[in-house]
């Protein structure tokens, strides 16, 4: 057993940190797109539009039923062979699209459960003042569902941040890819990957602090 090369690790930290913006960009872009798509699917699942309902269920079933890595490969390496238009797509875009589709399937179910969890009286009060279905969803139901779904959705966001490391397999040099390249030169694989692990961990910890602030904010209306 050899000692850890701490100097090497300390020197590597700023190099890997340089890739944090790319990781965050992929995760935030993926999260925003996934939230929009998941909310639309969740609302559809609640109000049940004929035919569309069947398609949404199929979508959710497929993207929950297959591994993210397989989906990314299908998207990046597979589909361009079938649709030449997709040959232009770069690794970062493909990763964001893959993360969006994958996580939207999970999040749609979480949001659907949260929508159903909004008390019936809230829906009726919205109807009684003459709101359209869209107004009721946007103004009354979804904001309250957001509070119920928030802890679960933050969990998915954490998962998504870590999931961006799979973009490495699409040839994107992000945190994981950079560490791999560094290690290939120095042969200090353990140190390099340990630095990556610690940086991911720190990011997620910071986010968990943010989660507390978010939940306090969302709960402020409910304090007695």
């Amino acid at each position: 057993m050899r000692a850890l090369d701490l100097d090497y690790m300390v020197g590597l930290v700023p190099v890997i940190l340089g890739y944090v913006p790319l990781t965050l960009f992929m995760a935030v872009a993926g999260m925003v797109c996934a939230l929009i798509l998941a909310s639309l699917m969740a609302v559809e699942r609640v109000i049940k539009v004929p035919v569309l309902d069947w398609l949404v269920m199929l979508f959710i079933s497929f993207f929950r039923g297959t591994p993210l890595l397989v989906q990314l490969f299908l998207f990046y390496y597979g589909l361009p062979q079938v649709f030449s238009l997709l040959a232009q797509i770069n690794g970062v875009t493909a990763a964001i699209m893959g993360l969006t589709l994958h996580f939207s399937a999970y999040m749609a179910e979480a949001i659907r459960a949260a929508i159903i969890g909004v008390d019936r009286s809230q829906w009726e009060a919205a109807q009684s003042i003459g709101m359209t279905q869209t107004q009721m969803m946007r103004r009354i139901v979804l904001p309250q569902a957001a509070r119920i779904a928030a802890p679960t959705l933050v969990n998915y966001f954490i998962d998504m941040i870590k999931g961006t490391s799979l973009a490495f397999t699409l040839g994107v040099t992000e945190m994981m890819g950079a560490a791999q390249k560094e290690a290939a030169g120095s042969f200090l694989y353990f140190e390099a990957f340990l630095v990556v692990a610690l940086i991911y961990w720190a990011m997620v910890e910071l986010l968990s602090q943010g989660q507390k602030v978010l939940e306090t904010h969302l709960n402020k209306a409910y304090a007695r």
Partner: protein
Amino acid sequence: MISIRGLTKRFGDTTVLDTIDFDIAAGERVVIIGASGTGKSTFLRCLNFLDRPDAGTITVGDVSVDAQHASKRDVLALRRATSFVFQNYALFAHKTAKENIMEALVTVQGQSRQQAEQRALEVLAETGLAAKAESYPAALSGGQQQRVGIGRAMAIGADLMMFDEPTSALDPEWVGEVLDLMRRVAKQRQTMLIVTHEMQFAREIADRVVFMDGGRIVEVGPPEQVLDAPQDERLRRFLRRVG
């Protein structure tokens, strides 16, 4: 002027409302009494399609809707011509008292926020809750919540204001303040349709009292007639029980 013809509602095989015909004059205050499960609440809820009636026509002001051919637009028009006070208050839990009142004005009626806020503050002052404008429902007592609920319905300025057992969920200590507010609403010649078990209040506020049983209107008339000289045996039995 409100006109109801042949209003019918079934839940499965049970007929909850059986071809009800009823008219209410503008500014009239009508109180519905009757035992639990006789269709009183369903009657109210069918008038704004919170429960969808199976048949009948409902006319409120210029809005006339045939239950069997009611489009989404018809239903919205009817709901906008009426307002509703719920037994369990049903305030929007994520909005302050002021925002609860503003919501219909801004989102449904398209008023400016400024205009709606001014109206909301006026209404809160009328309900005696000016100091609670920025409070969320969870921080209010049951009585205060229901007063905001009534304020929300008042602000809409609907042709017909409906109250579905507005004091039934309240602790006894809060009933008085809610009834007081309803008396003030009644003084403004607002057309009101009220389901309640408060017989004394019914006697005092109602122009007419309606007794419902088995999904039908059994007896209608001024309070002194219906409450003091009941004709139907079911009404007599009911009055003895609540008496």
